[in-house]
Structure formats: structure tokens, C-alpha cells
């Protein structure tokens, strides 16, 4: 008990809430991070884990609630600098190294005390020592330019930098998906180092989708769902199954959200193998979609679903090995700003752009046909505007998304690819769109639907679960449960 602080709680969060527009990312979350402990934080995408950690790291400001560090209420002046001064470091999912600088120079960014003659040398020593400690035999040259390193090595540098000490102590390190690009050996080394760090009195928050490593490394596990903490227990009190159950919604919605569409025709209109095939899974599983079918692409975000949709989109235009597409393809973008909207155009122009071929008389586009389509779809999909000639940016995000739906559904495409298209769309609109999708599917259109929302998968006839760019599970509607999807998202051999 030689330590000056008697409070064993390093960080105390009390009723922290945060919302982005109408979306409540965090709903009054309270929890403590004790000294000398590793807290595991789990929950599926959008559960609020990353938001919580950004608030703790100071890169986001909490909407309400208190942040108390070592017994001092810092709520009003909490920011990145404050967090840093109190020894709170963060390794984010999106790596934050400067690619044009060397490893040593990147290390210096976190340590302003390294200055004067020979700072590069001292920074190099600092980061090399820490790399040696965390990842023995790492083989990373501190003078290497970060942009030239592999993604795994960049992640190693980022982690080592977070644990490095100059004039400021390191008390808490937040690791957000630290092992996502590391192989099993490196991941093992990191987790062993975390245990050593914790044994020496440091604290770690470990966020991971790999439940095995959370169960084996963390002292306590906090489970989040929909911006709330739904369970917090000693790690030993959890099993993998009970964790998965905690993360999913316990209440099962009524079976089948709508009348099932039946398969029209036996020959698939889309058959596509993922780009990355593992040697351990000979052949891998291919995605098949038939006429009139709604096919779901599930799994954690960024595990190859969007890549698959892009492969199918490209496959419709030119031959791609492993992809066969029979029919015209249209895409509904989820990332409106980057992939969908033409910001200088009117609502009507944005809507009709994929259908101009049908509206052209000889060389010229028939403006009356164009206006007709825009008016028709404004009514059918309920876009809230009086005038389709208004700029697209005059619409709210959800209504812009409806324009993108109208663009795809109004085209002559028979296969519609949807790249998590319901982001930022309110619940009422969602219900309208779901109904429209079912009606269109009944008429023979095929939908391939990547979604991160469990509820939306219930509208699908068939669900493929993706992990690491591969299809790991193939579920028919009758076999679809949230547990099975989560289970296959996290571990293949569970």
C-alpha cells in the first residue's frame, strides 16, 4: 500500500450519454475502470462501444454525464489533452499513424518531451524498446516509413506506441479491435503483454469481436447493446454461449416478418464466389440468388459483404472469374455522400439518371417522361417534397436515401444490390421500403441485401454470413436466428 492514491478506481463514468442527431449512440452509461484490471467490452456493431471509448479518449465530447479520473471530476475540461495528461491512451480501430512519417517520428507525436538534438534517436530507442517488450522478434525498423509497412506491422507500432512511456505515465490503454490484423502468434504476444501490464498495476479496456480472447484476457466483461450496458460480470461468470446470448436481443420477434417469397425459377440469376478463398475451406461457399429472392449478406461490418456486392456489380458489366450474373444490376448505396448522391442536381435528375436509356427518343432525353417518372416515384415511395425540381440536398438524409431507392427500383434492373442502405433512415420509412421490397420480389426481382441490422435479415429468404471475406454460414429462412448469425460471425468452429 505504498501507492499515494487510495482510490482503486481509475476512471469512473457516470451516466454518460451521446447522441448523433436523432440517433442515440449512448444512453446514460455508467461504469468503473479499476486500477490493475483488464475490462473486456463486447457488443455487436452500433452497440456504442466505440462511441464510449472515443469519449473516454477525449476525441468525442459526452452529451451529458460525468467523467471522474482518479477521484477528480474532469467532465468540464475533458479532451484529448486532458486524457493524455492523465495517462489515458487509445488504439483506435481506424489506425491513426501518419503514413508519410517514420515509425520513430510517429512515436514522437505522442511524446512532446522528446525534443532538442537527437530526438529522433531517442524516439527510435523508445519505440524499439516497447516493440521488443510487446512483440519479441518483431523485426520492425524504427526508421522505416509507416506507409511502407504491412497493415499488421502498422497495428503493432500503434499498439507499442500506446504503451510507451516518456515523461508521462501510462495508466489506461484502450485497445479497440487490436488483433483484427494480427495473426494468432502476434495476438497471443499482445494478450500476454496486456496481462503483464495489468499485473504491474495498469488498466486496459479491451474491445474485441473475438470472444475467446476477451474471455481469456479480461478480468471483467461489460456487454453493450443499443447504447446501453446490458450485463457486467466477472469474466469467469461468462461462457461463450452466455456472452452471445447477452449481445443479441433476448426477445425473439415473431417468426418471419412477412409472407415468405417463393423461389421463382430454379436457375440462379447470381452466383458469386468471394474473392478471398481460404485453403482450409476447399472451394469455399458461393453466394446464390434466384429470381424473386431476397438474399441477406450478414456478419460483422467490413468482412467482405460490400466487396462481394461490388464484385457482382462489376461481374454484370465484364467477365470476372467466379461470378456469373444474369440480368441488369442496380445498386442502392448505403454511403449516400460518397456512393450515391449528385449534390448539384435536383431530386428528379438524381432519380432518373439510371433510367435515361429508356427515356431517350433517338438522341434526346424526353423531359416529359423524366418528369413523369420523378412524380410517380415521389408518390410511390413518399418523398417529402412539394417539387421534384428542388435540389436533392434540400431533402433530409432519409429522404435522399428514398431517392436512391427510387433510382434503383425505377430502373429496368432485375437484380438490386443494397449496401446497408438503411443507415440513417427512420423506422416508418423502413417499414414502407420493406413492404416495397417484398412486393418487387414477388414480381420477380432479386435483391441482395447487405445489412448490419438483425431485424432486417428477418425479411430475407436466405442469409449468408460473412467473416474475413469468406462465406462461413448459409442459412435458410427457417434456420435463421440471431444467435446463429452472431455465432458464425464471431467464430467458425464454435
Amino acid at each position: 500500500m505504498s501507492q499515494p492514491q487510495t482510490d482503486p478506481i481509475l476512471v469512473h463514468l457516470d451516466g454518460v450519454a451521446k447522441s448523433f442527431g436523432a440517433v442515440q449512440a449512448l444512453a446514460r452509461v455508467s461504469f468503473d475502470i479499476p486500477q490493475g484490471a483488464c475490462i473486456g467490452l463486447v457488443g455487436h456493431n452500433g452497440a456504442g462501444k466505440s462511441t464510449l471509448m472515443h469519449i473516454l479518449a477525449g476525441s468525442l465530447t459526452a452529451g451529458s454525464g460525468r467523467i471522474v479520473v482518479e477521484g477528480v471530476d474532469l467532465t468540464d475540461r475533458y479532451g484529448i489533452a486532458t486524457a493524455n495528461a492523465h495517462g489515458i491512451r487509445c488504439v483506435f480501430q481506424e489506425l491513426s499513424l501518419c503514413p508519410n512519417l517514420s515509425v520513430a517520428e510517429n512515436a514522437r507525436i505522442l511524446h512532446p518531451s522528446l525534443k532538442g538534438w537527437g530526438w529522433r534517436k531517442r524516439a527510435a530507442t523508445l519505440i524499439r524498446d516497447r516493440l521488443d517488450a510487446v512483440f519479441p522478434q518483431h523485426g520492425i525498423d524504427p526508421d522505416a516509413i509507416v506507409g511502407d509497412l504491412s497493415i499488421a506491422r502498422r497495428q503493432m507500432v500503434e499498439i507499442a506506441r500506446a504503451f510507451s512511456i516518456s515523461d508521462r505515465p501510462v495508466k489506461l490503454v484502450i485497445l479497440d479491435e487490436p488483433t483484427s490484423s494480427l495473426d494468432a502468434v502476434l495476438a497471443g504476444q499482445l494478450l500476454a503483454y496486456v496481462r503483464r501490464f495489468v499485473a504491474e498495476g495498469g488498466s486496459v479496456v479491451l474491445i474485441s469481436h473475438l470472444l475467446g480472447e476477451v474471455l481469456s484476457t479480461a478480468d471483467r466483461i461489460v456487454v453493450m447493446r443499443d447504447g446501453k450496458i446490458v450485463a457486467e460480470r466477472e469474466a469467469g461468470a461468462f461462457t461463450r454461449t452466455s456472452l452471445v446470448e447477452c449481445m443479441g436481443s433476448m426477445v425473439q420477434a415473431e417468426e418471419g416478418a412477412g409472407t415468405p417469397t417463393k423461389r421463382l425459377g430454379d436457375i440462379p440469376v447470381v452466383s458469386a464466389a468471394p474473392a478471398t478463398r481460404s485453403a482450409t475451406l476447399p472451394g469455399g461457399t458461393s453466394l446464390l440468388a434466384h429470381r424473386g429472392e431476397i438474399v441477406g449478406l450478414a456478419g460483422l461490418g467490413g468482412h467482405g459483404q460490400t466487396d462481394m456486392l461490388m464484385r457482382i456489380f462489376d461481374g454484370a458489366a465484364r467477365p470476372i472469374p467466379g461470378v456469373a450474373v444474369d440480368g441488369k444490376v442496380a445498386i442502392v448505396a448505403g454511403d449516400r455522400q460518397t456512393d450515391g448522391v449528385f449534390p448539384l442536381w435536383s431530386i428528379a435528375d438524381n432519380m432518373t439518371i439510371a433510367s435515361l436509356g429508356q427515356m431517350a427518343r433517338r438522341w434526346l432525353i424526353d423531359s416529359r417522361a423524366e418528369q413523369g417518372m420523378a412524380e410517380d416515384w415521389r408518390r410511390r415511395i413518399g418523398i417529402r417534397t412539394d417539387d421534384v425540381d428542388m435540389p436533392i440536398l434540400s431533402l433530409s438524409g432519409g429522404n435522399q436515401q428514398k431517392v436512391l431507392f427510387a433510382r434503383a427500383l425505377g430502373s429496368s434492373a432485375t437484380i438490386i444490390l443494397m449496401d446497408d442502405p438503411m443507415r440513417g433512415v427512420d423506422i416508418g420509412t423502413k417499414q414502407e421500403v420493406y413492404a416495397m421490397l417484398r412486393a418487387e420480389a414477388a414480381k420477380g426481382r432479386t435483391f441482395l441485401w447487405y445489412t448490419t441490422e438483425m431485424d432486417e435479415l428477418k425479411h430475407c429468404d436466405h442469409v449468408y454470413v460473412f467473416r474475413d471475406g469468406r462465406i462461413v454460414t448459409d442459412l435458410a429462412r427457417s434456420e435463421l436466428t440471431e444467435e446463429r448469425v452472431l455465432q458464425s460471425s464471431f467464430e467458425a468452429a464454435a
Partner: protein
Amino acid sequence: MNASLLQRLAAKPWLWAYLGALAIWLATIAFTEGRGGGDVLTAALSFATFSVIVAIGQMYVITLGPGNVDLSIPATITLAGAVSMKIMDGQDAMILPGLLIALGCGVGVGVGNYALIRLLRIPPIIATLSSSFIVLSAAISYSRGIRIKPPPMLADFTTWIVAGIPVLAVAAVVLTAIMSVVLHRTIYGRTVTALGQNARAARLAGLPVDRTRFATYVLCGAFAGLNGYLLSGFSGGAALNMGSEYLLASIAVVVIGGTSVAGGFANLPGLWGAAMLLFLLVTMLNTYGFGAGVRLVLTGLIIIGVITLAGGKRQAR
């Protein structure tokens, strides 16, 4: 009704170029007390015609989006002028083949430019600048500095003026109108505008991205070739420096005319206002008796002023 018409007019991005041109013209004839006002307009129309022809191509290229610009226009003008004059060799019978050859030169340069941009992935600004050196060298070695007179009929046509209005200008106005319809009412034109706003979204909307970019660079080359042909006829033969002033002019006319430099938004009427403005500006400064240095400084300042005014107006809209 009248008010709304005025409001609509005020919202047009090309209005400022015309207002500027009008103001400068009034300032000029105020100085000369009304003398020569009509002649100045005739001359302005004649010279604006050539700026507008190349600016149409440049406008399409700039509308493709950030980074797209064709700097090979001056070299293409020179090459097309030199080659077509030499082939026609002053004979009226060769007027049509000469035109086709001039256009062919332009198309060739456009194809070459796009090959550099697409296949070698060179940024357009570098690709077209470096290709312009090659094209200009080709023109120099081909013509060897000999100035060949244009066929008499071509010379007569390009300098033909009826009731104070150059016939060539009328033809160019018709061409501008056609290209305006192409921009707004064809799939090609829509694709150009879509690409300039969001290239990724254009690809995902199923638009023919590569084909459109290719066609646009070729189109720009063809317009430069046409310009070289007509300008040679107008000025009594091809000269090696005949294109040089059209580098800045083509870009300035596009921008002053209310087309977005960032791409995705273009308009053709503005080209005429802007081209007239640039010519009248120089005329006015000459009339006022400014030296060359002051003239250049004022030209620069006035261009900046017009762009700021027009740009500010568009933002407010």
C-alpha cells in the same frame, strides 16, 4: 410574373459575364463619345468566336471533375492549322478535305491525351501539357515555318460580315446551341455532369464512365482542330504561335462564363458573354491609352473581380 422572370434571370450564372461585357462596352464608347461602338462589337464577335469554339471543348473537359483540364489546346490549334493549310495549299477544291484533316488532327491529339491519362495513369494536367510539347514540335517540323495562304473561299467565309455581324459568329452560336442541348438533354451530357459531381456514384449508377471521359477529351481536341482550321483561314494562314493565347483564354472564358471549376456544373451561354468581355476589356484599356503593363494588371484584376462576383452569387443561390 415580371418579377419572377427577373428573379430567374438573376439566378442564371452566365448573367454576370454579359453584364460585365455590357458595362465595359459602355465605358469604351463613353470615352469615344459613341463613335465606333458598332465596329467594336463586330470585332468582339469575330474574335470571341474563336475563343468560344475552344472554350466549348474545354468546358466539357473541366466539367468532368476536379483535375480535368486540357492544356494541349494551343498546340492542337497550331498543328491543325499548319497541316490543313499545307494540304489545302490554297485550293478551294480542298476546303472540305482540309476541314476533315484539321478535325482528324484534333481527334488524334484527344485520343493520345486520353491514352496517357487512362493507360499510363498520368494526371490530365501533366498529360496534356507534355503531349502539347510533342504536338507543337510535330507542327514545327511539319510546316518548317513556311506560311501558306488559305484557300480564297475559306478566307472569304471566315471574314464574311453581313450587316455588322460576322457570319462565322452566327454559325458558332448555332454550334453553341447544339452543344447546350447535348449537355442537358443527352445521356452523354448528363454523364459528363454526373461524373464531375461524384465519379464513384456515376459508376455505381451504371453510367459509361470511361467511354464518356474518352469522348470528352476527343471532343475537346476536335474543337481545337476546328479552331485551328478557321483561325488559319481568318488570319491568312497558320502561324506557330497562333494558339498560344488560347491556353489562358479557353480556361478563363469557361470560368467567367459561370461554369464550376470543380466540375459537375456547366453552361454554354456564359461562354459568349465571357469571350466578349475578355476582348472588350483589352479594347477598352487600349482606348484609354494604358501601357501594356497596366493593361495586363488591370486585365488580371478585372477577371478576378468578375469571378468573385459570379462565384459569390452562385453560392448565395
